[in-house]
């Protein structure tokens, strides 16, 4: 009886859509599980639809049950979005656990965990760093070691103006 009860509890827990995201203390943030379909935002708005949601070239979002388009702007990796995590679910229905940030000038979604709708386990939205590491090797600060960031910062400096010297710390 006890085992049956425990099994039922685990089953219910697995099927529950809600899992609290980690709050970040951002103005207008609300912990939320968005359930809906992953879309290529440009395709959704303009019917300009390449295969596979643009294959990583385009910004992605989630259309929820009410038809609202939630623009995903951030994933769990520092300084990175969650496009690789969402791209794996292009056109599919997912549960996205994160923070909906309703700022007066823009509404964005910070994706923290993702799973197929109704599946058991949420996965952290950190595919960006897995793919980056596969291309470039391990780094504790991908953003400083990325070839393209190094090229741009190396060219114009950290302030964006060639020759402009940072202030002493």
């Amino acid at each position, binding site marked *: 009886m006890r085992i049956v009860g425990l099994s039922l509890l685990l089953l219910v827990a697995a099927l529950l859509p809600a899992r609290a995201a980690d709050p970040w203390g951002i103005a207008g943030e609300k912990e939320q599980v968005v359930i809906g379909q992953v879309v290529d935002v440009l395709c959704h708005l303009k019917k300009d639809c390449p295969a596979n949601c643009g294959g990583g070239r385009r910004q992605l979002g989630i259309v929820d049950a009410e038809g609202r388009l939630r623009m995903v702007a951030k994933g769990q990796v520092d300084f990175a979005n*969650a496009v690789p995590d969402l791209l794996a679910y292009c056109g599919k229905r997912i549960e996205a656990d994160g923070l909906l940030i309703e*700022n007066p000038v823009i509404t964005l979604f910070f994706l923290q965990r993702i799973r197929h709708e109704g599946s058991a386990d949420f996965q952290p939205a950190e595919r960006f760093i897995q793919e980056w590491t596969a291309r470039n090797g391990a780094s504790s600060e991908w953003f400083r070691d990325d070839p393209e*960031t190094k090229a741009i910062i190396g060219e114009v400096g950290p302030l964006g103006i060639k020759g402009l010297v940072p202030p002493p710390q």
Partner: protein
Amino acid sequence: MQHLLATLSLGLLIGLAPVSTGQAQSGPAPAAPPPQMVKVSGEIVDTWCNVSGLMFGLGTAHYQCAVWCTLGGIPVAIRDKDGNLFLILKIENDDLAVNSPRLARFQAHEVTVEGELLERDGVKYLLVTQVADDKGVINMTHAEHGIQPFGQ
């Protein structure tokens, strides 16, 4: 809404009128609304830092961080003088809007662009058709804010 219209009124361009290309078979099909063409001036920013407020997300102080974020795939926007954010999905027929070196090189620049505005569920999306002006980085914020977010 009124605020947005007021903001855009100076730069509002003439929308493209729908063009009839054939004879109607059983009455006219509902015409798609004409695209809302706008001119927007402001600073290129990364949306996450600008909205989260976790660091000072403007100008020279934030340039390096904005490059990192852009190449990390965080959406890029233009912030106008009233604080409106216009999220860029496409720029001059280039739909590369994720990890885009071109957008990264635009960061913190003061620009004027023309394009199509699409508003949906709290976001103003912009499909840039032309970069009309690019003044480069002119918002000198580093003296007050250092280099965000780590100081180097």
